[in-house]
């Protein structure tokens, strides 16, 4: 059992109630001053609420990092007969699950924050866009909305203030691009989930062409705490440009897989080693991917980077929604880049050419490299294509899609070089470049490998060293996995 014996490096604001209250019981939430923030806000002027959020320094936790108060201010200043407050719960990054945790553990804080935001911008209607793959989160959110309604904390004339606000749930079908706000809005309108060019921004013209604010689940979860504890309290936590905390989903080759919430400015080293316990089985840390398929890989050289929006972008990665996938010495960075490209290639909506066709071409070049057929020219083509896609794609998905390739090419240039120049995969992952053989000094002749080899390319007499016929070997690795004596050599 890996003990997380450490100073309290974590501060839980967005996840303050997860694991402490009964998410299906509104009284449990009211008992910890739930909806008091909303009650306070309803006695304030709208502009003062916007100003309070501005002063807190809260920025969008979905990844973009746009100042939440500024966004609300734009919607407030746009006059319209109807405005909308939307919660983006279309969490789709591989390895990210913080929004689900918040919705399953503390749905009322999101409901309360949406009402606060609604009041601030002058919206009477709200919607949560949530992926249908989150049934428990949907069930608890639904119950939270129903209970809030029956207490009069949603609906007409909330707490006698004259303010009306209600929330409906909209289901997403799991398309990654629908996390992009303009695609999300189109999907909510019943159209294809495809982005449109900005401007106009949704805060000016969004859902049904009305001013619309789209905020992420985690952004909302911070709001009630900011209202009650004040903007100064919130802005006292974090770095000069990034205030408060960020929730990360630690996954991959990490001992303590789980959610962590740390103040902005915490180093990657503290998150991965002090809290996460480092890589399991004594393996060496190699890289960490932040920002999911839109982010980049950071190496051991970047471990002392203080996490905030700007410092991660300076290192060619990004904050993203908070997925943190850790890789160890057994991971091939070209294959990792290929994995993320495979994801974005699948998820591109196909509307713009750079993303639709560019992703396919990028993937093909990466496949060529991992199969040992790559050349130096391929590397420069890869680089050029990446830059062109970044410059020309329509939305955030396409513009950030090349990031995993660019950052791994930059940080792990030697690994790309080994693939194209020496036709070797240093991490022994790209099987087409591997050769398998048997170490006669270690082989005991147990015959186990002959039983698992699907092409019967291993032969020998019982209790005597065996031989592997490399010309027949399909490099599946079954013998390597099965051998108990480390006698199979993979190089």
């Amino acid at each position, binding site marked *: 059992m890996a003990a997380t014996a450490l100073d309290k*490096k974590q501060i839980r604001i967005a996840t303050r109630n997860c694991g402490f209250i009964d998410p299906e019981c509104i009284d449990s939430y009211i008992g910890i001053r739930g909806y008091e923030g909303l009650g306070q806000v309803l006695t304030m002027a709208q502009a003062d609420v916007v100003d309070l959020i501005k002063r807190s320094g809260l920025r969008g936790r979905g990844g973009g990092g746009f100042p939440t108060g500024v966004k609300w201010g734009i919607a407030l200043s746009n006059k319209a007969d109807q405005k909308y407050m939307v919660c983006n719960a279309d969490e789709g990054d591989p390895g990210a699950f913080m929004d*689900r945790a918040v919705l399953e553990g503390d749905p009322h804080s999101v409901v309360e924050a949406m009402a606060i935001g609604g009041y601030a911008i002058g919206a009477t209607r709200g919607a949560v866009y949530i992926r249908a793959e989150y049934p428990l989160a949907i069930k608890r959110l639904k119950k939270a909305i129903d209970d809030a309604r029956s207490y009069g904390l949603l609906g007409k004339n909330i707490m006698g203030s004259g303010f009306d606000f209600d929330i409906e749930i909209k289901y997403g079908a799991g398309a990654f691009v629908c996390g992009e706000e303009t695609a999300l809005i189109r999907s909510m309108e019943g159209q294809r989930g495809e982005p449109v060019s900005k401007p106009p921004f949704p805060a000016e013209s969004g859902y049904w062409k009305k001013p619309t604010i789209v905020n992420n689940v985690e952004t909302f979860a911070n709001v009630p705490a900011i209202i009650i504890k004040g903007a100064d309290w919130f802005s006292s936590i974090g770095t000069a440009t990034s205030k408060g905390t960020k929730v990360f989903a630690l996954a991959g080759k990490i001992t303590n897989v789980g959610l962590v919430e740390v103040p902005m400015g915490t180093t990657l080293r503290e998150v991965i080693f002090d809290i996460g316990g480092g890589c399991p089985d004594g393996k060496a840390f190699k890289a960490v991917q932040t920002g999911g398929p839109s982010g980049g890989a950071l190496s051991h050289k970047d471990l002392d980077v203080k996490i905030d929006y700007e410092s991660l972008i300076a290192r060619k990665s990004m904050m993203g929604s908070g997925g943190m996938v850790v890789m160890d010495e057994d991971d091939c960075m070209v294959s990792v880049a290929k994995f993320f490209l495979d994801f974005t290639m699948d998820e591109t909506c196909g509307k713009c050419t750079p993303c639709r066709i560019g992703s396919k071409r990028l993937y093909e070049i990466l496949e060529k490299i991992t199969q040992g057929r790559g050349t130096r020219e391929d590397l420069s083509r890869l680089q050029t294509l990446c830059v062109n896609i970044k410059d020309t794609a329509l939305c955030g998905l396409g513009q950030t899609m090349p990031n995993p390739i660019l950052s791994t090419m930059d940080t792990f240039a030697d690994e790309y070089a080994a693939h194209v120049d020496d036709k070797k995969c240093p991490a022994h992952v790209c099987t087409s470049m591997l050769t398998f053989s048997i170490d006669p000094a270690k082989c005991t002749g147990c015959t186990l490998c002959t039983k698992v080899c699907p092409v019967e390319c291993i032969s020998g007499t019982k209790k005597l060293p065996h031989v592997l016929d490399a010309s027949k070997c399909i490099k599946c690795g079954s013998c390597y996995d099965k051998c108990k004596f480390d006698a199979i050599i993979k190089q």
Partner: protein
Amino acid sequence: MPTIKSLDELKAKRQDILEREKAKLDKVVINVSLATCSIAAGGNLALEIMKEEVAQNGLTNVEFMQSGCMTYCFAEPTVEITLPGKAPVLFCGVDAAKAKELITEYVIKGEAVEGIIPVNYERVVL
């Protein structure tokens, strides 16, 4: 249900709730993490077994509650037990055998059970 018509009414409601929750101070509170992932890891099974064990031992001062994600994916299922007058203790990897042990050893005898996760965060309380 009567609706809450002002901030004062909300605050009064909160006082009622806190009053009601005071009754729990004399009880053993067993909080089982039941998010999607905790359920997949066997959280519901742990809850059932502990309930059975409580019934079999005729314990009447135990209250069960569910909560969401406790953030320790590597240690699921997780169960937090608060004995009267004591600080909450979080137990990890609560399989069928551990669930039984938590009741017979920790709840009934107050004896230590292995697999405790120390508190490694500061929780912001409003």
